[in-house]
C-alpha cells in the first residue's frame, strides 16, 4: 500500500503574484522557513495554515495542494 504524498504548487502561485517568501510569510504570519519548508514539501501545513495561504494567494486550497 503506497502512502499518499501531499504535493503543492505554492511556489508557482507565489511567483505569478510576484510575492517573495518573506511577503507571503508576513501575510499569513508564519516564519519564512515555514513557507520554505512547505514549498519544498518538507513540512505539511495544518488546515488553518493551508486556508490562510489560499486566502493570501486568492485561490482555492485544492489549487495549492493535492495528493499524489
Amino acid at each position, binding site marked *: 500500500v503506497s502512502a499518499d504524498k501531499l504535493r503543492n504548487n505554492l511556489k508557482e502561485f507565489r511567483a505569478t503574484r510576484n510575492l*517573495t*517568501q518573506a*511577503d507571503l510569510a*508576513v501575510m499569513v*504570519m508564519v*516564519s519564512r*522557513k515555514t513557507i520554505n519548508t512547505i514549498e*519544498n514539501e518538507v513540512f505539511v*501545513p495544518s488546515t488553518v495554515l493551508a486556508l490562510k495561504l489560499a486566502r493570501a494567494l486568492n485561490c482555492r486550497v485544492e489549487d495549492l495542494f493535492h495528493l499524489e
Partner: protein
Amino acid sequence: MEDSEERLRQAEGLAGLRRGLLLVNALAYVVALGAGGLSRVGGYGFDTAQLDLARLIAWPIWFLSLLGILWTMHRAKRHPEIGALMDDERTVNLKSIGFQAGYWAILLPVAGHMTATYFTDVDIKLVLPFVLAVGVAVPPMTLRSCTGAKCVRGQITQ
C-alpha cells in the same frame, strides 16, 4: 513590501539570538552540573579546584543566558507581529520532538547505568548530574539545531 523584509529581519534576528542563548544555556548547564558531579566523586583525574572554578563560571553564564532567553520570549509576546514570525505551527512540532528527545536522553542513560551496576561499580553521584544535565539540555539543543538553516531543505529565496 520592504516592510515585510524589515519585520522578518527583526524576527529572524531575535530567533537567531534565542538559538544562540539556548546553546549557551544548555552547555553551561551541562558544565555546571557535570563539574559538580565530578568534583563530588573526587574528580576522576580532573583537578577538583578547576572543576569548582568551572562550576563557578558556568552558573552565572547559565543564569545570564536564561535571562536573555526570557527577554526574547517577553519581546516576542509584547510584539505578536514579530513573535508570530518566530514561532508557528512548525516550531511547535519541533519543540515536541525536542522534549521527546530530552525524555529519552534521561531514560536511556539511567537504564544503562542500572544495567552497568550488574557488572561494575558506577558511582550514581557522578552519573546522575550528567544524566539530569543532558536531559535538560537536549530539548533546547534539539530545538536550536532543528530551527537552524541546516534543517531546511532547499534554498531560502528572497
